[in-house]
């Protein structure tokens, strides 16, 4: 065990940067598994009620804005690409480009949230809200608020993940500017990237299931 005077580029209980990176990566993958289980609960519940009330789900899903959903899908796919490029650049010690790519990723995420804002505010305006808050009158099927509860809970939880992702990207952007990362040491960038990809991937499943499938 070495004293504090020796400056290590990795935590003292690991042997090397690579060793620490390997551990961090496994940890991140396990965390992603928990995310999949979390959204799995939503998908299972959604599937059950879709099966129980096909008419209600059919009627309700016409009130979702498919074009905005599709736009957001494209935006998130682009952001996944820029995130991956940022990692590729930092692995080649190109800090400038890596930072630019992070900014582009952030921009996409912001566009996603703005589109989401317009989607939500339009629904709120029409009185289409989750649960008890549901006020819209021009629906036929009984208990149709249940569908919109799912819509808001699922997209809301996903949106929360996007916001957390934006904070994480800002954090690595700041650290990158400080010179924390290079071709040898880029763990945090890679881990935030992994998180960002799972957030995108969940949307890739969520969008067709909720917006498109009848």
């Amino acid at each position: 065990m070495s004293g504090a005077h020796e400056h290590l580029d990795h935590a003292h209980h690991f042997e090397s940067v690579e060793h620490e990176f390997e551990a961090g990566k496994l940890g991140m993958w396990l965390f992603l598994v928990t995310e999949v289980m979390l959204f799995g609960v939503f998908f299972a519940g959604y599937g059950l009620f879709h099966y129980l009330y096909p008419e209600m789900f059919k009627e309700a899903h016409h009130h979702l804005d498919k074009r905005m959903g599709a736009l957001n899908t494209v935006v998130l796919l682009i952001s996944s690409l820029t995130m991956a490029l940022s990692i590729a650049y930092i692995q080649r010690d190109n800090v400038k480009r890596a930072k630019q790519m992070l900014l582009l990723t952030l921009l996409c995420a912001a566009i996603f949230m703005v589109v989401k804002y317009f989607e939500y505010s339009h629904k709120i305006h029409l009185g289409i809200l989750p649960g008890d808050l549901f006020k819209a009158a021009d629906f036929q099927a009984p208990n149709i608020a249940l569908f919109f509860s799912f819509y808001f809970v699922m997209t809301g939880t996903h949106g929360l993940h996007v916001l957390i992702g934006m904070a994480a990207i800002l954090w690595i952007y700041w650290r990158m500017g400080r010179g924390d990362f290079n071709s040898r040491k880029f763990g945090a960038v890679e881990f935030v990237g992994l998180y960002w990809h799972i957030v995108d991937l969940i949307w890739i499943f969520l969008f067709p299931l909720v917006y498109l499938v009848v």
Partner: protein
Amino acid sequence: MGHAANINFYEAGNKGIMSWLITLDHKRIGLMYFITTMMSLCIGGIFALLVRLELMFPGQQFFDPNTYNRLFTLHGAVMVFWFIIPAIPGALGNFFLPLMIGAKDVAFPRLNLLSYYLLLLGMAINLYGILHGPGADTGWTFYTPYSIKTGAAVVSMVVGVFFMGFASILTGLNFIVTVHTLRCPGLTWFRLPLFVWAIYSTSILQVLATPVIGITLILLTLERTLGIGFFDPKLGGDPVLFQHFFWFYSHPAVYIMILPAMGIISEVIPTMSQKTIFGYRAIAYSSLGLGLVSFLVWGHHMFTSGQSELANFVFSLLTMATAVPSAIKMFNWVATMYKGSISLATPMLYAIGFLFTFGIGGITGIMLGVLSADMHFHDTYFVVAHFHYVMMGGAAIALFSGIFYWFPKMLGRMYNEFLGKLSFWFFIVGFNVTFLAQFVAGLNGMPRRYHDYDSVYAGWNLISTVGSWGIALGILMIIINVVYSSFKGPKAPANPWKGKTLEWAAESPPVLENFEKTPTVTSGPYDYGLKA
């Protein structure tokens, strides 16, 4: 190197209360978990004693039905979420997992500390609901639709459990990565101590199952605040869906509680018998196997909830399959003891007690898994007695075994052997009196969770209440022993039991980063020279 090599972790580094509260040392974090969960045991135990006191005679004794409902709810919730789930991984796992694999710490020490504070945060939120709110009266299962309608503090209970679940996930994640990446040279997977295998299997369950309960409880919160309707039949929702989600976690959670306990038994028995473990690989694989099947049997809690007959049949069949890996372990433990030189010190007494009480708990579990029989047993005291045999006669008794077994290593002092043995006898007699009586009452049809009961059950209830005092005395003696010996016990040698696993190669108590020099392993963990 500012200090002499053999200064233990209590004295090395910083001192004072803050050095503990912000420590990143897995041993200190483990000890904080130890103190916290033992306090939880006392709180949950007091609730249990009060419940038993009320049920001592038919009719109302001390508490009105509402208070009684709150007492049994808090007993269950505290014992499950504050005590059993965090106790063994948090306290003994944290302290010993890195030692047993020759590592300096867990993979993510900061995350480890965060887990601990998330546990405390969850407890604090629960306490807020208990002390400032109306408490909770739903039972620890929070079944809908009652939990949507009741005026009790359901939200602060389930949000608290959400945070404790987060703590549990992060602990599991940390341990999995630790086992994968920080094993010392020569420590192959099949040289790992079986406690490590058990904690590893537990961690997989924590990571996979806990997110499900976490989000389900958040949905329950939204149900109460926004009326989202997922679980409310009035709004088109399905209350049985809640039961599915709940048990999808809570059945594996039973294994989150019992697998680490089995790991302790797998350490104590070979060491105290000075004999190589019988069927090492079978025990290791059966831990993974138990973890796997535990995900496939949750429906056995819903035989009477209107599941399809096919689902009932499949869940019943799979439930019986869980007996196979458990039995494999039991036979291997007994075979390990055969012709060993057995020491009947306190840890071994508790371990042998485990073999009996867990055996009873396991076999009655099979009875409950039988579809036709469960129609009768469901929601009776038979179920209550069964899971207390598994949880208390399994998880808690193994924890006590582990506490005495590793006490010399953790504290560097020996516990009092006489008081240890005395605690065992009070505990084991009290335990069996309490819960054998409940088996009989349950078989005769006494329903669980009721405030009052028919006078035909009076005798068994009186016996059960008297037995609960034996348990209380036993646990009190354990606590006195631990507290007293921590300060006054004689100095412990590095290896009082002549154990072969790596933690015994460290000093008692270990030095700051566990070993003077990273150890190298050249043989299996229970190499006593005697082949089984």
